């Protein structure tokens, strides 16, 4: 386990050096998308239309934030559960998406696609939305405004704290740590 600072857009070299369990601080532009936005993006690709942002080497954060109070950049903004995006994810990884931030385990198909395309899946702390929002320095809705909390936002983040949950070789922190703790738990 190591602590690493990275910037976006991601490159292959940076991704290859990340290992499951690493604590990572992300600085740069990331994009938000959750259920409804994923459906629209994948429908766009199916119909030969362009995506609403340059997905190459980008990171998508699975979040539907609270509205900002006057003077705030954004309201609480913690991760949502990732498995709901699993059906759409391989399609996006194939067209250049490199990183995802969410919470919870991913399907076999997603993990295979992460390995095939040299990508990385980060976990942020679910339910720590107030804490995370302080790392978000700007927020702008860039597509699907009608979706409200589910619209695509372009965020600028500074030292956004995440953990590498699934690295580019397919090592999966959820499986590794759960098995370890289960064995310890049974011994006690």
């Amino acid at each position, binding site marked *: 386990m190591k602590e690493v600072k990275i910037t976006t857009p991601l490159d292959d070299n940076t991704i290859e050096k990340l290992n499951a*369990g690493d604590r990572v601080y992300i600085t740069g532009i990331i994009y938000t998308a959750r259920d*409804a936005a994923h459906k629209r993006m994948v429908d766009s690709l199916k119909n030969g239309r362009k995506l609403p942002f340059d997905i190459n080497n980008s990171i998508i954060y699975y*979040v*539907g*934030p*609270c*509205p*900002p*109070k006057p003077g*705030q950049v954004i*309201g*609480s*903004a*913690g991760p*949502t*559960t990732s*498995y709901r995006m699993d059906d759409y994810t391989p399609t996006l990884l194939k067209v250049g998406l490199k990183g995802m931030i969410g*919470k*919870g*385990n991913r399907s076999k198909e997603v993990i295979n696609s992460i390995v095939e395309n040299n990508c990385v899946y980060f*976990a942020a*702390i*679910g*339910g*720590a*939305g*107030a*804490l995370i*929002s*302080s790392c978000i320095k700007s927020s702008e809705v860039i597509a699907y405004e009608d*979706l*409200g*909390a*589910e619209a695509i936002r372009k965020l600028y983040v500074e030292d956004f704290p995440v*953990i590498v*949950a699934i690295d580019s070789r397919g090592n999966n*922190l*959820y499986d*590794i*740590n*759960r*098995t*370890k*703790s*289960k*064995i*310890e*738990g*049974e011994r*006690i």
Partner: protein
Amino acid sequence: MRKINANKIIDKVKEMCIKANYELGGDVLKKLYDARDREQSPIGREILDKLILNANIAKNEQMPICQDTGMAVFFVEIGQDVYIEGGSLTEAINEGVRQGYREGFLRKSVVKDPIIRENTRDNTPAIIHYDIVKGDKLKISFAPKGFGSENMSSLKMLKPSDGIEGIKKFVLDVVKSAGANPCPPIVVGVGIGGTMEKACILAKKALFRKLGEYSHIEHIEKLERELLDEINKTGIGPQGLGGNVTALSVNIEVFPTHIAGLPVAVNINCHAARHIEVEL
């Protein structure tokens, strides 16, 4: 006959929506501190520290603990000697939700039709369970229910012969397959008995109980303690990243049932186990 004005209910509900989402209850916070002391895995402790820090930030800054400010769920006990004047009770509760979610800058997470999925933009309608009781009081309990954990909930119609072992196995299966998804450490609400829908409502009601309180029925309290112990041996841990604190509490509610049945519902709540109640 005691009169309660609908406007008073609107104001109260508005206040409850905001407060429950900004300030984690003392019972839940205490359980998080206990969990921090008990947790053996370093990553688990690190996460619990951040959850406690997050709850403090939310309270101090008066902002939501979690961005999933939920679907608004209410249990309402209305004394049969109460008369609501100036509007219907259901409309008053929904208006309180509408105002609370707007003025509290809470997320609007409700879609009008489950298939067409267009956002209602005011987080209504609320889910309201009514109970008519003796007296002239109105008791309103509210929980903003997030769906990361709601999605991991389940119902099973067991056979009477499945007994207590069958119940335990089902609850553990639900928790294990939920894994990291419902934001552990979780609160596990279990409803046993009644009919299909009654078991589900009991499981939901169990989540409204103050953490740290056990069932008053001796063998149910025993089951709550045993299940909590077994859940914490699964290794899932805080955020599913390993550890020995997977659940903060197991709360079980029971009801008489049919000679042929043993309905069991499991309703999971995340660590941001928000709930609040007032009496008017």
